[in-house]
């Protein structure tokens, strides 16, 4: 998992800017991968030297071929392997002997087929390590660099994309070809285009770090099928965003909840791999997209236009209906309709027809031509109360679409504010759309996509500008005491810690537990209850019972010594009836809190991202609505605050319908302390605090029940 950060820096400069390239295993059969890779390098005007290496051909595409890479008289910066997978080891070994330090292994037949393929992949990794070779692949489409300094199409894609400032990294080779086709139709260019396949040497994280410093790249797009090291991905993203200000968009497939059902805790069952992935990517400032279309919709906004400074949007339209649709879409994304200044309204009054609506959304009326769009757009862009503009056009008989498109491009270029367009329709607007796309005005088929792209750009802007999270060193933490409880359970072969032990661990980390004690006899229970003070709650303690309520092992609101004794007997009787033979350790007597909002806090250890902290409102909200939020630990004060505000039922805590607000600050502290606990006690696999009872503002909160799985 940590291989990436521990391994030496990868030589990516020679992958993208080689002075000489050798294609190992090429042939003369057009239409095959070994041939087409070589032909593409030649055809697309690579600026360096390219050598075909073919065991039996004297020449390929008219270029003199070499039998072995060792036969090439000059140095080779980059080797591209297109041999069958069974002999890639031999080819790579010769590359090592030749002194080649960078390679792209196109061939399939490695880890992705399992068995012998897995062994082959391990072998090439070992050869690469021996000779200090960094390589892309295997099992990939290749690499494209559109920079005129290199102009390398080392791939078997049908076409080389136009130059642009978007980099695309993909785990899937086939998806690359579809993306190239999609992008060409929309005039979207790329800086670097990489299919990284099995990432046996160079990973997406290595490539991201390279792109951070690539002057040709402004936006990084990644398609991933698996995240093998989520923590490293988050770290890389955070560094790239803070150091280079480049946005990272991720399309991650496999949005399933596999594995979640088998979890033993609430947190385990709610924190499915995709939910955690979603939260983690967002936490690191990455923009997760659900489709290729959404990814490019967001990418062109970020790549072509300045970032919005705020959420006040002006809408300019030549039709009422689309204006309303755009308004709805804008509000849905938590954006606002900008209020124009008096100066802007004055300009509109003078220059637009009396029938025009000069308030936002501005309706320039169906017969509007380029001059009216120019006035409306220019007015909005120079208004200090406007952060960005959406331009909408419907093709009416009077609409001079192409002139309007030109005017939009000219006007937008004069201001440092983002403007996006939606020319609604298909055939009639096609030429206008083409003008917008070629001049880097983001165009969207629907206003909904436009507002989503704006919201994504704004999210990125906010994230980029945030100060780094600060982590509090809390007092009252006794790591050793907590560890002793865990060690004691593990040495007894137990992995489930009932409430009594879980409470001790939480208490050691300063979480507010209620006064309590374990009674092993009735008089002891009565004495404990009197000492704690009524009312109390009594609960069965047994390693054999996880769900105490299911066996009627909990009695609430006990208010007298007599009731305490009766409850003691009743619980033992109930448990014996429901689970005969269960080993009972005693009865847990705990102070009962009757007022307050119930929330749930949890911990889960995710295979890829590490320790995950969960927060949600208790009861129905967590059971039915799954209204919870997640963060990857460590969680600081800001993230804790965001977690609480993120849930849909936040208003219940903030003081809805005349209720007093709850003590949210105390919950924030609990979340942070829990994050420290989970990081410092790696034996804890899952943890639930359910419920944490939150009092009114200033009144604190209390752990009413907890369980820990080791």
């Amino acid at each position, binding site marked *: 998992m940590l291989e990436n950060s521990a391994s030496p820096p990868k030589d990516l400069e020679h992958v993208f800017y080689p002075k000489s390239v050798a294609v190992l*295993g090429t*042939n003369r*059969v057009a239409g*095959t991968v*070994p041939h087409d890779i070589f032909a593409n390098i030649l055809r697309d005007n690579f600026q360096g030297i390219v050598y075909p290496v*073919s*065991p*039996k*051909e004297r020449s390929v595409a008219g270029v003199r071929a070499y*039998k072995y890479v060792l036969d090439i008289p000059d140095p080779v910066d980059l080797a591209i392997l297109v*041999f*069958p997978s*069974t*002999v890639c080891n*031999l*080819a790579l070994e010769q590359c090592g002997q030749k002194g080649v330090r960078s390679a792209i292994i196109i061939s399939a037949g490695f880890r992705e087929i399992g068995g*012998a393929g897995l062994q082959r992949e391990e072998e090439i990794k070992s050869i690469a390590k021996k000779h200090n070779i960094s390589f892309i692949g295997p099992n990939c489409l290749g690499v494209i660099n559109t920079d005129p300094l290199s102009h390398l199409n080392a791939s078997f894609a049908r076409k080389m994309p136009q130059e642009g400032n978007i980099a695309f990294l993909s785990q899937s080779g086939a998806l690359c070809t579809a993306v190239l086709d999609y992008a060409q139709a929309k005039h979207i260019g790329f800086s670097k285009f990489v299919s990284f396949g099995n990432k046996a040497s160079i990973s997406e994280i290595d490539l991201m770090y390279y792109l951070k410093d690539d002057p040709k790249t402004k936006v990084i797009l990644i398609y991933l099928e698996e995240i093998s090291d989520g923590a490293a991905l988050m770290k890389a993203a955070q560094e790239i965003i803070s150091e280079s200000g480049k946005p990272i968009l991720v399309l991650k497939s496999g949005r399933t909840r596999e594995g979640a059902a088998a979890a033993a805790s609430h947190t385990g069952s709610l924190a499915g791999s995709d939910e955690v992935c979603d939260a983690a990517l967002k936490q690191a400032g990455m923009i997760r997209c659900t489709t290729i279309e959404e990814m490019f919709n967001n990418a062109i906004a970020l790549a072509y236009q300045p970032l919005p400074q705020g959420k006040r949007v002006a809408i300019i339209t030549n039709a009422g209906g689309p204006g309303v649709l755009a308004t709805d879409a804008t509000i849905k994304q938590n954006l606002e309709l900008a209020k124009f200044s008096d100066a802007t309204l004055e300009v509109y009054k003078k220059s637009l027809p009396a029938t025009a609506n000069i308030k936002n959304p501005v309706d320039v009326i169906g017969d509007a031509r380029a001059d009216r769009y120019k006035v409306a757009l220019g007015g909005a862009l120079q208004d200090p109360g406007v952060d960005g503009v959406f331009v909408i056009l419907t093709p009416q008989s009077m609409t001079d679409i192409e002139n309007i498109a030109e005017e939009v491009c000219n006007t937008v270029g004069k201001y440092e504010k983002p403007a996006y367009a939606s020319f609604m329709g298909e055939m009639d607007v096609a030429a206008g759309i083409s003008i917008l796309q070629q001049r880097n005005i983001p165009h969207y088929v629907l206003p909904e996509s436009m507002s989503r792209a704006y919201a994504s750009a704004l999210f990125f802007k906010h994230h980029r500008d945030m100060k780094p999270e600060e982590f509090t060193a809390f007092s009252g933490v006794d790591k050793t005491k907590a560890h002793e409880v865990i060690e004691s359970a593990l040495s007894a072969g137990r992995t489930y810690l009932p409430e009594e032990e879980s409470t001790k661990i939480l208490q050691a980390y300063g979480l507010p537990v209620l006064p309590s004690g374990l009674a092993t006899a009735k008089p002891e229970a009565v004495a404990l209850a009197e000492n704690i003070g009524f009312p109390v709650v009594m609960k069965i303690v047994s390693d054999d019972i996880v769900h105490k309520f299911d066996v009627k092992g909990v009695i609430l609101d006990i208010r007298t010594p007599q009731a305490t004794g009766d409850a003691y007997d009743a619980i033992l009787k109930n448990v014996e009836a429901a689970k005969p033979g269960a080993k009972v350790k005693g009865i847990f007597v705990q102070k009962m809190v009757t007022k307050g909002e119930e929330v749930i806090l949890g911990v889960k250890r995710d295979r890829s991202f590490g320790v995950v902290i969960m927060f949600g409102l208790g009861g129905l909200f967590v059971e039915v609505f799954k209204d919870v939020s997640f963060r990857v630990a460590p969680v600081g004060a800001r993230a804790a605050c965001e977690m609480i505000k993120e849930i849909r039922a936040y208003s219940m805590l903030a003081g809805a319908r005349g209720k007093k607000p709850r003590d949210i600050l105390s919950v924030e502290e609990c979340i942070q302390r829990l994050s420290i606990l989970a990081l410092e006690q790696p034996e804890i696999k899952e943890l639930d605090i359910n419920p944490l009872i939150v009092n009114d503002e200033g009144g604190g909160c209390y752990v009413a029940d907890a369980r820990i799985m080791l």
Partner: protein
Amino acid sequence: MDKADIKARVEKVTALVLKVDPKEISPTANFAFDLGADSMQSIELIAAFEEEFNIQMDEQKAREVQTVEAAVEFIAGYLKQP
């Protein structure tokens, strides 16, 4: 049939199928890496060996054979069978 005969016939078939100069076919020559067999030609080679020696080979195992000398051994194993 002795190993020398098998070797001579393996080299003859290899030269024909892969269209390479017989002089280039050494015992250690790798069909793909040294003689340029692609995946289709590897299958053609297996079929040609079966015809030449009138044997039926396990295709999966045959595809794992990479060099001329390994092919000689592999085929000899079939020819020994009753």
